[in-house]
């Protein structure tokens, strides 16, 4: 060959400023920040309590369980799939863990296994649910939406059946520990959620497994052709998602101080809302943990703010929805890109 191939010559009009490129990638993740900042400013004006350390802890604590489930859902969505059953995992897994630990008098199964076994079972149940979902979706190639919707209904039903609808009180303290034990004044659950997001963020960005999730979500065929074991990874992500949701369920238990037979019910809407306004694309392959986290925080801040502002209770929901829509529009305006 006589001449060198035309490398990116600086004169080419197709060349852009490198940092501009990097920016463009970031914008999707940062899109929510302006809305979040506006809300924080409004919050500070509306209530002097808003920016106190105590209230910030309150917001973080109230978000911790949501954060775990959003993390799980985000990983699954990035892989191009769906999991509606995470909300029921968050109820079912801790309940089973509790039932095998509690005496019959406290509505348990009466097995009275050691607490640590109960806690391990919570995680195991999460993993098993994820495993079954993965099996049905990856192996039997059933539709992920319906599989996990059916799983949601089944688990909800089994929870009611197993508890006979009764709320489980008087759990061993360990079931509450993640919310009760604090470090620097902040519950362990919050630290754990933060750590989980940090690890997930790093793995997604810097580890081949994380990159594989994006590749699978973006184009599973191409991922397979590049040697990624697509089915195995998807399956693994479902299992991980189940475990994370189970941990999220333990957070709820610690937060609420009991396990009711509808723990987690209705949560999945909020989970999707947080993930998607945080820039996780339902098409798969797009979005970051940082974005998802801003989504969680946005929802947490709005809820907190509406309570502090003592908005009339009849209108609180309508205002909540309006703020979400507003945030979405601000994100659209600041990022300049259509949303997927």
């Amino acid at each position: 060959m006589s001449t060198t191939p035309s490398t990116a010559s600086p004169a080419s009009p197709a060349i852009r400023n490198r940092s501009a490129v990097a920016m463009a990638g970031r914008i999707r993740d940062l899109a929510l920040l302006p809305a979040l900042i506006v809300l924080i400013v409004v919050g500070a004006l509306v209530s002097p309590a808003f920016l106190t350390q105590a209230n910030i802890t309150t917001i973080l604590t109230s978000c911790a369980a949501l954060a775990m489930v959003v993390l799980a859902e985000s990983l699954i969505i990035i892989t191009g799939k769906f999991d509606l059953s995470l909300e029921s995992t968050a109820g079912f897994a801790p309940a089973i863990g509790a039932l095998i630990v509690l005496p019959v008098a406290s509505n348990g199964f009466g097995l009275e296994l050691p607490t640590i076994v109960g806690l391990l079972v919570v995680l195991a149940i999460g993993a098993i649910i994820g495993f079954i979902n993965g099996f049905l979706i990856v192996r039997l190639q059933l539709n992920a939406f319906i599989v996990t919707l059916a799983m949601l209904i089944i688990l909800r039903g089994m929870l009611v059946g197993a508890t006979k609808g009764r709320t489980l009180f008087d759990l061993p303290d360990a079931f509450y520990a993640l919310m009760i034990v604090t470090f620097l004044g902040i519950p362990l659950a919050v630290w754990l959620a933060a750590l989980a997001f940090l690890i997930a963020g790093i793995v997604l960005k810097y580890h081949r497994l994380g990159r594989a999730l994006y590749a699978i979500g973006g184009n599973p065929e191409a991922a397979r052709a590049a040697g990624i074991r697509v089915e195995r990874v998807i399956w693994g992500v479902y299992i991980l998602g189940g475990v994370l949701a189970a941990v999220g369920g333990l957070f709820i238990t610690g937060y609420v101080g009991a396990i009711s037979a509808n723990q987690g019910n209705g949560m999945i809407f909020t989970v999707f809302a947080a993930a998607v306004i945080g820039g996780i694309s339902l098409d798969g392959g797009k979005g970051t943990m940082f974005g998802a986290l801003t989504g969680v925080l946005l929802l947490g801040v709005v809820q907190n703010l509406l309570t502090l502002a003592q908005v009339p209770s009849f209108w609180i929901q309508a205002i909540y929805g309006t703020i979400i829509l507003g945030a979405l529009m601000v994100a659209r305006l600041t990022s300049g890109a259509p949303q997927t």
Partner: protein
Amino acid sequence: ESGKVAVDLTTLTSPFWTSYNKYIIEEAKAQGVELLEPFNSEFDTAKQITGVQNALALGAKGIIFSPFESAAAGNVLKAAEKAGAKVVAVDVAPDNGPVAIVVRANNVAYGEKACKFIGDNVKEGAVLQIMGDQASINGRDRGNGFRDCVTKNYPNLKQLEVPTKAWSGEDAAAGLDAILNSNPDLKAIYMHAGGVFLAPTLQTLKRKGLLKPAGEAGHIIIVSNDGIPQEFDAIRKGEIDATVSQPADLYAKYGIMYLKQAMEGKTFAPGPTDHDSNIVEVRPGVLEDQLAAPLVTKENVDDKSFWGNQL
């Protein structure tokens, strides 16, 4: 020959309702009533109607049902009438007949009782309601009863509210947590349903280091509602101060009793009953046996007659 009886449950996931469900089954056996499998309408009126339709298809001649809303009972009653089945309403009164009788307690009075108790113990400062779902009549009645009573009788109290969707305990915890930041000197709380709000409320106070037993400085006066055993325990420990015992047992007992009688062709009339209550004609054609819903405090918490002490 009496015929089968169908029972509608508003929900199966509140301790109050699961207790009620248990009592219904016991009472049916005790009173010799053949019960169909109770159905769970999950706070959804349309599900309730489908459930009743299905029960009628199975040959039910009597129905005990608990409308989520007074106004939403009409079609159930019409369908039952068409099928020649008798109906007894429990917990919520339908707006109009035909209904053999209503068994319930006055939910506005629940809110008023809580208000009086708090008003008598707190002179001034902030009081908080943790509200039931405002789309349910029980949630609204309790809220209005409390709110109007405070406004009228205790103008020195500053009223705060935490709303919840579908009686959600998580909403309760997050809301209370936030309110405690803006009103750290909160004096009292009224929870609309101890069954679902007790644990989250105590847990939140515990987390914030504000759970002081009665008598200790900084104790927040708490009045609950429902009368489940866990509330009684909390009263004994001094964690909360009172609760309204909503008579799940009597709801079941008299619900079954009246239905059995109605199916035998008996009709009812206003006047006192043999169990310390009055039958009142609340609207033309609608009779209501207004059972007592006593306030439980440290003084009477060990009274064996409360259903919460019998489980």
